[in-house]
């Protein structure tokens, strides 16, 4: 490029220096398998995107982006992107270190105490962060090399989403400072804060467990609102509705996700005593909240998030089903909030028995919301009789199967309402002495009671199961340590937490509810060589969750001995020596049918009877486990979220922090070990991450690496049901369906209920139609089964009017050690596009253009099977290999028309300029790869 200048941070301009960029990329590629070609690739692609006057900061981003867009070629580019990104963070947070690792390490530590003190001075950090700790000791325990264990998407999310920001909104902490901040922010009240912070830090910095989002945002800050979930119900009076709107605003600001039950609100048309008019029903009030949450930036990062809950016997439930429909009156639709339906066992039974389902005005049936199980069914039947006798003002009925159908069709087309079940939630609750649980939360993993003066609060962290796999085994001892520390950390949180409304403080303090989750389940299965859709995976789920449950309970009981029991312990099922798995009996007894779940232990070393005795003696927390979806912290830890299967082997995530490619590193490593990665990588993208039809990949890998749409939905249910046995709250069970068959869908959700799932979460439907792919070879002619003009045209013989002057062509990357490979070698190794074009040409050989040959192209003489090679070969020959040979000008070299030959036509613009820069490119040796190589074309 002519005169490319860079705008430096101080505004001064300097001449672009390719050498400088190359050196910096080189350092980021150190120790990787093929650093030289990686440097070339990144440098040349960076230069493609530069423009005159680009800022230094933009240049950094351009380099990172060039690395990132190659991750699909080789996951080692991910490592490079991580290092390049870290460098920008280090420069900002730690200062200049002249690319010297020793200098960096020293400054990394000395800077730590300054980071804390400056943070306190500027109001970003709590004064306790200095008062309570030996900062020198903490700085000494920072494990700087752990900055590199991130994936690019993980590091980028962490920085963008969770890291403290400076006044320019840029991340103001390194990853290790970040983890240390969380650890310190949760250890103030320990006897030895420094020592305990080191222990928490050691776990989190290895991603063995990760704190919940709110904790990551606010721990260590002067306003530590650390809770993730709030669950509140709206009562049927105007004052409480107004207060609830205000509460929603305040809780959103405190960065929590919110569940709101609107079941108690009287129906539209229900009389208002005060004015002899009628109520407008729940919808307009819900709309206020839907709008309210848009106004709040949670933790400054994301808008509020809320899920409404309604029981399906509510008179306005049919309207509720439409809340998420994309068409219709905007005032009757929730654009931001989500919806879930809270179903009773009685409803499910009526669906099965094909009975009627009645809907009532809660004003007339106020106790239904408080009842569950058989008691609900009994009272509900009484109301039906009252309705039949004409004793109720408002009621209506539909066949239960019809409403079931409506719910599921809405779920399929709008992804709402999510299905959750009131009775297993309440019948299995160990904290059943504190009132009815009227809803779950935003992510359907929390099961806590609420009332007018108590808002339920839950505090989350998630274990990373994949992080505990060592040498193809789960390290149970390490897992136990992680569980115990995570439980302690979560319990600490409650005494540090500051919440914006007194009802939430009350709910938090009195129940000390925590939810330890598990993520990386599918990742762990892959590393252990198990298919998600297998009995082994289900058994593994059973064993893991039993173990985690046992250790979590034991640790909470230990904490009770150290710190005292939670306020409502007496009278809870815990105090009677019950553990979660024991509550299955209560559910099955009430239902009168079995869930099919076995209750015996699968871990010989665990002594549940001893634990039951210990539990009787006191528990520190009302609840202990909840498996959150981990859509963000799973990404940060570079593992699969929650108990979800792999969405696909390659897919994209649309996140607040950006759109990231997710490629399954486990699969890539397996394919690399087999030596077939380069052969199949394009096909995997072409197949949108589904490897099942790629012949080169052995079938046993296809069993392990299925996509979420090709995995049986019953496998999702089985894995969750096994885990649910041991989990006292619930699991965010994402569902994925390929089929849109309604009967199949009904069977799936009926099975989920029968096997004792408390909740399901988001439903992902496989798209039937997606946008045209851009980076794979696509030819829509193939699907038409037609040949179009292919019968009558021959070679690409246009002369290029105006070559695209890519900057890269002007300033080839100079990487001296490059070994040039001759281009000619390739001409017969061109990829075969999946098209049928050019069939006619194919028969004629299609090598260098000779008009005479083309004159005789008969339409019928085509041979589709041999066509593709010819197409590509023709192209390559004409354009790259022999630019000095005849390249005709104008038009198609078509039937009966001799093209004008013109010697020495300028070489056409090719994509990658290094092609033309003689020493600047290493061409691959592998023929398949070489076919993709631009230099070789």
């Amino acid at each position, binding site marked *: 490029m002519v005169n490319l200048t860079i705008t430096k941070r101080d505004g001064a301009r300097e001449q672009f220096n390719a050498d400088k960029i190359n050196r910096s990329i080189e350092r980021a590629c150190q120790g990787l398998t093929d650093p030289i070609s990686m440097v070339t690739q990144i440098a040349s692609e960076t230069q493609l*995107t*530069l*423009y*005159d006057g680009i800022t230094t900061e933009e240049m950094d981003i351009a380099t990172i*982006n060039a690395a*990132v*867009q190659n991750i*699909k070629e080789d996951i080692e580019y991910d490592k490079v992107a991580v290092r390049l990104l870290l460098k920008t963070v280090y420069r900002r947070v730690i200062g200049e270190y002249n690319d010297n690792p020793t200098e960096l390490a020293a400054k990394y530590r000395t800077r730590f105490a300054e980071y804390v003190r400056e943070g306190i001075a500027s109001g970003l950090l709590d004064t306790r962060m200095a008062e309570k700790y030996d900062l020198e000791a903490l700085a000494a325990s920072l494990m700087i090399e752990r900055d590199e264990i991130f994936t690019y998407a993980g590091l980028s999310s962490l920085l963008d989403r969770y890291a403290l920001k400076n006044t320019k909104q840029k991340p103001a902490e390194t990853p290790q400072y970040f983890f240390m901040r969380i650890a310190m922010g949760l250890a103030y009240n320990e006897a030895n804060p420094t020592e305990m912070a080191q222990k928490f830090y050691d776990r989190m910095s290895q991603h063995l467990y990760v704190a919940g989002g709110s904790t990551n945002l606010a721990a260590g800050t002067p306003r530590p609102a650390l809770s993730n979930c709030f669950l509140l119900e709206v009562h049927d009076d105007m004052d409480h509705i107004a207060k609830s709107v205000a509460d929603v605003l305040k809780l959103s600001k405190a960065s929590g*996700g919110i569940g709101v039950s609107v079941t108690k609100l009287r129906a539209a048309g229900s009389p208002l005593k005060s004015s002899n008019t009628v109520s407008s029903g729940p919808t307009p009030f819900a709309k206020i909240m839907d709008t309210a949450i848009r106004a709040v930036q949670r933790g400054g990062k*994301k808008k509020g*998030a809320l899920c409404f809950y309604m029981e399906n016997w509510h008179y306005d439930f049919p309207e509720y089903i439409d809340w998420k429909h*994309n*068409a219709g009156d*905007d005032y009757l639709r929730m654009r931001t909030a989500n919806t879930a339906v809270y179903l009773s066992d009685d409803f499910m039974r009526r669906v099965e028995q094909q009975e009627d389902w009645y809907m009532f005005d809660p004003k007339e049936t106020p106790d239904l919301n408080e009842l569950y199980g058989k008691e609900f069914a009994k009272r509900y039947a009484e109301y039906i009789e009252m309705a039949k006798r004409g004793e109720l003002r408002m009621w209506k009925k539909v066949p239960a199967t019809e409403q079931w159908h409506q719910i599921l069709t809405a779920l399929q*087309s709008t992804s709402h309402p999510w299905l959750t079940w009131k009775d297993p939630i309440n019948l299995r609750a160990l904290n059943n002495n504190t009132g009815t649980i009227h809803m779950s939360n935003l992510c359907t993993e929390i099961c806590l009671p609420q009332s007018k003066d108590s808002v339920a609060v839950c505090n989350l962290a998630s274990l990373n199961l994949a992080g505990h796999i060592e040498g193809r085994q789960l390290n149970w001892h390490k897992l136990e340590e992680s569980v115990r520390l995570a439980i302690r950390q979560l319990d600490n949180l409650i005494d540090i937490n500051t919440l914006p409304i007194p009802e939430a403080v009350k709910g938090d303090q009195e129940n000390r509810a925590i939810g330890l989750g598990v993520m990386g389940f599918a990742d762990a299965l892959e590393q252990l060589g198990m298919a998600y859709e297998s009995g082994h995976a289900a058994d593994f789920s059973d064993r893991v969750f039993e173990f985690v449950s046992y250790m979590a309970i034991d640790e909470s009981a230990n904490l009770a001995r150290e710190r005292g029991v939670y306020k409502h312990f007496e009278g809870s099922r815990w105090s009677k020596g019950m553990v979660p798995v024991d509550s299955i009996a209560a559910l099955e007894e009430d239902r009168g049918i079995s869930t099919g779940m076995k209750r015996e232990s699968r871990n010989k070393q665990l002594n549940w009877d001893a634990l039951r005795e210990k539990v009787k003696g006191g528990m520190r927390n009302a609840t202990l486990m909840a498996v959150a979806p981990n*859509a963000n912290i799973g990404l940060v830890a570079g593992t699969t979220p929650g108990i979800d299967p792999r*969405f696909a082997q*390659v*897919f*994209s*995530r*649309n996140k*607040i922090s950006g*759109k990231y490619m*997710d490629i399954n590193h486990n699969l890539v490593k397996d394919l690399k070990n087999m030596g077939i990665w380069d052969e199949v990588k394009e096909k995997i993208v072409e197949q*949108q991450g589904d490897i099942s039809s790629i012949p080169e990949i052995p079938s046993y890998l296809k069993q392990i690496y299925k996509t979420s749409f090709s995995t049986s939905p019953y496998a999702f249910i089985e894995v969750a049901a096994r885990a649910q046995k041991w989990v006292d709250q619930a699991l965010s069970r994402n569902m994925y369906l390929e089929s*849109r068959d*309604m009967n199949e869908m009904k069977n799936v959700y009926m099975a989920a209920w029968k096997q004792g799932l408390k909740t399901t979460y988001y439903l*992902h439907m*496989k*798209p*039937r*139609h*997606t946008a*045209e*792919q*851009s*980076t794979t070879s696509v*030819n*829509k*002619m193939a*699907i038409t089964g*037609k040949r*179009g*003009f292919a*019968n009558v*045209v021959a070679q*690409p013989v*246009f002369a*290029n009017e*105006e070559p*695209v002057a*890519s*900057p890269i062509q002007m300033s080839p990357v100079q990487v001296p050690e490059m070994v040039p490979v001759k281009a000619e070698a390739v001409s017969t190794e061109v990829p075969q596009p999946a*098209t049928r*074009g050019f069939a006619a040409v194919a028969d004629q050989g299609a090598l260098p253009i000779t008009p005479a040959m083309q004159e005789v192209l008969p339409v019928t003489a085509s041979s589709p099977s041999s066509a593709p090679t010819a*197409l590509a070969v023709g192209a390559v020959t004409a354009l790259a290999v022999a630019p000095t040979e005849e390249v005709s000008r104008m*038009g198609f070299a*078509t*039937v009966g028309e001799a093209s004008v030959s013109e010697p020495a036509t300028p070489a056409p613009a090719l994509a990658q300029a290094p092609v033309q820069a003689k020493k600047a490119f290493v061409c691959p040796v592998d023929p398949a790869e070489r076919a993709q190589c631009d230099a070789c074309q």
Partner: protein
Amino acid sequence: MLVGKATPDDMNLHPIKYQWAYDLYNQAVRNTWFPHEIALKEDLDDWQKMTDDERHAVKFLMAFFNPAELIVNRSIALGVYPYLKSAECHLYLAKQMWEEANHCVAFEYVLQTFPFNRDEVFAIHLQTPSMLAKEAYINKYMKRMMEDSLDIETPEGKKDFIRNLVATNIVMEGIWFYSGFMVALSFRQRNQLRNLGSMINWVIRDESLHLKFGINLIHNILEENAELVSADFAQEIAGIIVEGVNLETAYNKDLFPHGILGLNADYVNQYVQYVADRRLEELGLPKHYNVTNPAKWMTTSTDVFELVNFFEAQNTNYEVDSGKH
């Protein structure tokens, strides 16, 4: 026959002769979306932080797309729909025209939400020679379709039909729009204008279908009218496409007079050439440019399934026809 003067027989949907058209119609109905499903608030925050050149690019795109959607509709209404005999195709085109209208309104929604000087943006396409040239190109082929001398029953009339279809469907929708989409999506790739990106996802989903329809239509017409398939005509069609690329090349220089992070005119033009080669091949014509796709990041942007965290972004994967099974 697909092309010709419609007779009363052509008013019957059944028996369905062109199943592909009917299938595309049904898929199009499932793809229905509305602009108001997307909230743009966060994008406005991004706007505040954007450089002048970045803002220029966004405005310029809007200035092109907003009228362009209407021009496509005119071309369909005046140059395509009247000359087709197939009821299935009419169904599809009716849905496509609604989609173009919806896109126009979607861009209108963006124009009204962003702090643009709207008169200024509306005037850009009238004042910018490179944009006027693009519109004139489309009008040239469309105008012919409205002339009394056109007899659709003759081979020459059918050729005119295909010329117009290629200009509108292949060049405008299949090349120019795709180039604009790539530019719009590049902002999201840098985590800017994410919600506009979601909207563009939907527009691309629609446009991919329009293109499928157009390519199917051309192939089927060529098959039914073998006399049209000649070397001369093939060359002429390729020439129409190349002409379109040249116009886009000039336009992109106005879109990026300087370049922004990650994009400059040369980069976009290489992408245009890449897409144009694909269109040529899809018609059975040889590639003309033989360039690679410079925007490798489009794999992440459009080529693989997207997993949306529902409370972070609009899920653009949903389809609206469940319950019909």
